[in-house]
């Protein structure tokens, strides 16, 4: 029996630590980064004042951590605001919607591998809450539930702009889920595994998917097959990253909450903490999306360049700290990727809705599908004869040209009919 309690305690510790002490604080932190980074881009200063108000305690100077306390002040403000529920809303759904956006985003945390493993008192523990064999699928399926929150918010608000926002969001998320799922098939073919920790371990040993510059702990150039696989991997990376932007409703695809057309989109009628929960859900989804990109394409927690095996042996007072170093490495990569998300938001203008749908259905869907065949051909090439590879390559080129031609032709006929 004590065994069970020990395991339960470990699991609960992991859940509390990763969800509430790692991912949730990343949300206000990325809001802070968003404000500071956008300020830098627009040649402003941004929030840099809020710190510890030592002058209140009678000291000479305030201590302002570059405004790092700003997110706490923002959060406090949202808590203290009046929580106003308009008369015309459908109450039950109106209350349910914010929770339905945050909860799925936080559930997906449980399959993300944050680090290798920490050993304590001879007990080795992986730094992942649930090490299940269907990591990416689990994230997709649970993340697809967050569409309910947004749709219900739009509908329950019982007013026009939120409803249009909700409908847009539903259509957008369903469309981009297809591109999202198809684009990582080449990656999963390459790894031959769906377990995210094993995928990262494989990358630590044999080089990251987009940077295969070492093998078994020594730096070396990739062999021909791995080098060729960089092409489908790069295409998959591009499609996947852009689809994550669309899936998390980030600029340039934030049409569900497009201010110029829809006031605030699906959260127009929300105030106070309910509004903040939509905000949190969106940023948490962004954090998880970045985590998934880092895990699949950029080596997850691995430091790379063959250093992981060396780090894995480090111990301080008998405690294996490799996991903590890897955790730090993972969070660094994650923050860099979040900064990339923010950079894109403040540089690229918003798409039109038809452009967004066309990009998803006409460009990404086909490109991801062709990419699957290309990746399969490259992976299978060592076992095939030259003639079959040649036929496959010719067929692939022919199909690609045909798809491009069809896309072009369908574009021509969609012109508005003259009145």
């Amino acid at each position, binding site marked *: 029996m004590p065994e069970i309690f020990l395991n339960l305690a470990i699991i609960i510790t992991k859940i509390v630590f990763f969800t509430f002490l790692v991912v949730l604080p990343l949300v206000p932190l990325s809001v802070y980064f968003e404000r500071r980074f956008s300020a830098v881009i627009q040649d402003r200063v941004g929030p840099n004042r809020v710190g510890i108000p030592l002058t209140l305690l009678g000291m000479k100077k305030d201590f302002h951590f570059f405004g790092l306390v700003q997110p706490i002040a923002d959060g406090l403000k949202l808590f203290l605001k009046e929580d106003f529920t308009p008369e015309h809303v459908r109450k039950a*759904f109106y209350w349910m919607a914010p929770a339905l956006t945050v909860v799925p985003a936080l559930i997906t945390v449980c399959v993300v591998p944050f680090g290798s493993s920490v050993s304590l008192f001879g007990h080795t523990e992986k730094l992942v809450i649930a090490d299940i*064999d*269907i990591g990416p699928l689990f994230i997709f*399926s649970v993340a697809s539930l967050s569409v*309910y929150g947004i749709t*219900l918010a739009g509908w329950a608000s019982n007013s026009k702009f939120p409803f249009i926002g909700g409908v847009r969001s*539903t259509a957008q*998320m369903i469309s981009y889920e297809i591109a999202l799922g198809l684009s990582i098939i080449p990656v999963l073919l390459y790894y031959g*595994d769906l377990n995210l920790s094993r995928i990262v371990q494989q990358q630590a040993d044999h080089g990251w998917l987009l940077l295969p510059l070492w093998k078994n702990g020594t730096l070396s150039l990739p062999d021909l097959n791995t080098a060729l696989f960089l092409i489908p991997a790069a295409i998959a990376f591009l499609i996947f990253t852009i689809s994550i932007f669309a899936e998390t409703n980030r600029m340039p695809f934030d049409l569900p909450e497009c201010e110029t057309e829809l006031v605030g989109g699906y959260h127009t009628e929300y105030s106070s903490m309910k509004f903040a929960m939509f905000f949190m859900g969106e940023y948490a989804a962004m954090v998880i999306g970045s985590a998934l990109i880092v895990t699949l394409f950029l080596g997850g927690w691995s430091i790379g360049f063959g250093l992981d095996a060396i780090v894995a042996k480090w111990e301080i007072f008998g405690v294996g700290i490799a996991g903590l170093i890897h955790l730090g490495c993972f969070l660094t990569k994650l923050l860099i990727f979040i900064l990339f998300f923010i950079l894109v938001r403040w540089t690229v203008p918003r798409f039109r809705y038809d452009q967004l749908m066309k990009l998803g259905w006409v460009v990404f869907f086909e490109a991801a599908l062709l990419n699957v065949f290309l990746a399969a051909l490259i992976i299978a090439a060592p076992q095939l004869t030259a003639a079959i590879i040649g036929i496959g390559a010719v067929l692939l080129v022919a199909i690609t040209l045909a798809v491009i031609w069809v896309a072009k032709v369908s574009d021509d006929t969609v012109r508005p009919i003259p009145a």
Partner: protein
Amino acid sequence: MPSPLFWLFATLMLIGGIAVISFRNPVASAMSVVACFVGLAGLFIGLSTFFVGVIQILVYTGAVMVLFIFIIMLLDLKNEEKRNSKYAPIAAGLGLVVLFTVQLVGVLSKSPNPEAPPLDRATLAAAAGDYLTDGKIASSLNAGQLPDVHLIGHMLFTQYNFPLQIIGVLLLVATIGVVVLSKKPAE
């Protein structure tokens, strides 16, 4: 004895199922179906079939039901809430339930119900003999894990390869058919 999680998810499923037919509001009914599907996925995961459970959520909850809700919201079914239920549909529904129960009892009473072997190391290692010795399935079975995704893939692409391809072609035809039918003729 089934685990407490079985009871949790089974209850969730049943409550969802009952709520579907008791709510007047179509959106509330649709949301109850979602709850029912989530419970079902939980039951699948309780049986160690993670893949089936997750696909259940991905396909039915994440895509099909979203479309349902989408359509219900767009149609704005106000009449549906006012409608009084008639006796004939209720009787027919009850009749179906009775028929299904009879069938279930019939099937269960005839089929043998041996104790399923526990998914421990020995059972899994014994099953590894059916697969290629150096393959992924055998190695993870020997390591005491159940590679359910690989097993389903193996089954589909060896024993049911032809039906799988036929279904693929069928879906493709259906997709193209929908595009052709829904596209307005250009003037």
